[in-house]
């Protein structure tokens, strides 16, 4: 007995329909990804010297990417885990789309660290000689656990739908069908399976929520544990976390709009979802603003010498342009859009969310670079400066391209809207889908 969902066909429709457009898109993304791979190979052979990093700016866009992608990854966990715990059942249609962002951005987040290493082949030294006082070990623990848990969380909720694919998409090529068979793990839609699945997911949701807080806090501690001005603040953890959730949620909006458009899922991914997300985003943007003010007011009010150097750099110095456009992109413009234009308007929402994500990338940049450029000892010696070099740009582009590629390919092989979670009735018991898709 399958879950009863009136949209099963619509949801399964995009699967397997690989169009010329898809091939072109995948090809383009693949080329970008390979270009990044080539750049990394080049970097591996020559050394990190080919990047724009220097002394004192030892960390550049790779670490920015790391923080950004890990932040982006919080979308999925937030939408499915936190809202699951909170009983927000409207989130059901977008859980998988959101979790997929998590799944596909995490490798590029974690990978950025490896790309940033001077000796990537020594990565296993972390296991052989791991030293737990280092925040990097915390990161490795948290991020790898997070990545693993995300995969499991994602996969568990995918199993029933894989089973559906297995059952329904008999016309698929042999290998693909075989893939469904294997991945479905013999799922047979028994009520007990669904009961246990729900139970497991509920349980994991709590764990994932804890992880999401941990992971981004730990990421921020990479910076916060050093005594460098601008970083050494207890607020850096919550600040990073909130930023992560904001950029993740904004990314969900972008992805949803794209899916809706590209795969004609207007009925399933209805406007109501965007309106709900809009309210969330308004909250997060304001929350982010709060963090921003709390952080900079504390620093600015106390006016400690070395902290002020960094703060001045951001407010009116070399990084003022980036800082203030970041503030406008993350907070100013999006808030106005959400308040006055976003309601019932997906175009404006996407616009604002794109701005937020550009802005959040810049925010990561502006947290990391100015502090490095003005370390305690070298301030009087002249500003450190940093501009990403070609390999860094290529690799950054490749990270985004890779993430998009994985996403695009995934949606052609698996239903991106969870069929069973949005079903009106599940085998064995009625699904509590009060806000089942209505398509207003």
């Amino acid at each position, binding site marked *: 007995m399958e879950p009863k969902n009136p949209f099963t066909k619509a949801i399964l429709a995009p699967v397997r329909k690989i169009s010329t457009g898809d091939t072109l898109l995948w090809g383009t993304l693949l080329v970008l990804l390979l270009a990044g791979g080539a750049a990394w190979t080049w970097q591996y052979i*020559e*050394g*990190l*010297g080919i*990047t*724009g*990093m*220097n*002394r*004192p700016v*030892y*960390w550049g866009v790779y670490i920015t990417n790391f923080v950004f992608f890990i932040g982006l990854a919080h979308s999925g966990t937030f939408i499915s885990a936190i809202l699951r715990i909170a009983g927000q059942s409207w989130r059901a249609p977008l859980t998988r789309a959101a979790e997929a962002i998590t799944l596909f951005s995490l490798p590029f987040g974690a990978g950025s*660290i490896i790309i*940033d*290493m*001077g*000796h*990537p082949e*020594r*990565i296993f*030294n*972390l296991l*052989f*000689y*791991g*030293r737990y*006082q*280092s*925040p*990097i*070990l915390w990161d*490795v623990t948290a991020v790898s656990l997070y990545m693993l848990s995300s995969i499991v969380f994602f996969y568990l909720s995918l199993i029933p739908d894989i089973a559906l694919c297995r059952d329904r998409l008999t016309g698929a090529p042999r290998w693909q069908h075989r893939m469904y068979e294997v991945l479905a793990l013999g799922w047979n839609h028994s009520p007990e399976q669904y009961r246990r699945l729900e139970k497991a997911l509920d349980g994991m949701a709590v764990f994932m929520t804890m992880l999401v807080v941990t992971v981004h806090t730990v990421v921020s501690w*990479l910076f916060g*544990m*050093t*005594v*460098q001005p601008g970083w050494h603040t207890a607020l850096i953890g919550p600040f990073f976390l909130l930023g992560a959730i904001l950029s993740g949620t904004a990314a969900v909006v972008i992805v949803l709009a794209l899916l809706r458009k590209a795969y004609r899922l207007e009925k399933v991914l209805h406007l109501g979802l965007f309106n709900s997300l809009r309210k969330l985003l308004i909250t997060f943007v304001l929350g982010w603003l709060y963090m921003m003010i709390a952080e900079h007011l504390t620093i600015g009010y106390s006016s400690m010498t070395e902290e002020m150097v960094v703060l001045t750099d951001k407010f009116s110095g070399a990084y003022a342009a980036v800082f203030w456009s970041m503030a406008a992109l993350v907070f100013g413009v999006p808030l106005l859009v959400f308040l006055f234009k976003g309601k019932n308007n997906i175009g404006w929402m996407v616009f604002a969310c794109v701005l937020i994500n550009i802005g959040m990338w810049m925010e990561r940049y502006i947290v990391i670079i100015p502090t*490095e450029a003005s*370390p*305690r*000892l*070298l301030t*009087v*010696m002249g500003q*450190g400066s940093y501009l990403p070099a070609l390999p860094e740009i290529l690799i950054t582009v490749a990270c985004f391209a890779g993430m998009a590629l994985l996403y695009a390919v995934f949606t052609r092989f698996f239903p991106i809207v969870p069929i069973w979670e949005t079903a009106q009735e599940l085998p064995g018991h009625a699904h509590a889908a009060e806000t089942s898709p209505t398509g207003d």
Partner: protein
Amino acid sequence: MPRWGMVIDLDKCFACQSCTAACRMENNTPPAGKDQAGMGRTILWNEVLPFVEGEYPNVKATLLPRPCMHCDNPACIKVCPVQATYKNEEGLVLVDYNRCIGCRMCTVACPYAVRYFNWYAPEWPEDLKAHLNPEPEVQPRPKGVVEKCTFCVQRLRQARETAEAEGRTFQATDYVPACVQTCTAHARYFGDLDDPDSLVSKLAHSPRAFRMFEELGTQPKVFYLKQG
């Protein structure tokens, strides 16, 4: 075991940068070249840092020679994920170049900016390789690892070997780093901070003595004596 420490008298230091050059020649740090130097990638373990403040004609300039502080509580060691940087029992903060993964967290964490990253494999024009110090501890480092001042740990070993060969007990005064030996104004002192009779431990407690960023709690073992 001695606890090695250094005292630099800023009143006697005339910022001649001989320490900088001696360090390079002793420890085989490669010339960066114009391009890399322009990016701030010069590797000079023992830099003299300029601080120029004030406006003409009331200008205050401080020229601060800065070796590794060999902190008792080093920020770099805390953050190293693989213990590639570690403090030995004589208090020297060292780097295992064969273990370092090149994450540069230590370079970011060190408030004294003493740690240098090998952005490229070190290079010398072929002829110039002749002058490289042959001691095993200072063989040119591979690309992608962090390096820093070691208080010339190879000299410590050499001094011990010499003492052994000469059949006498090794004394703290047998060993000084290259920068101390070459210091043109005899502004640097080196020795055992745990020995209350040593010159360094006396000077380290002089009223003129201070340590850089004492407030950070890193407990540097390099002391400065105030100018004037």
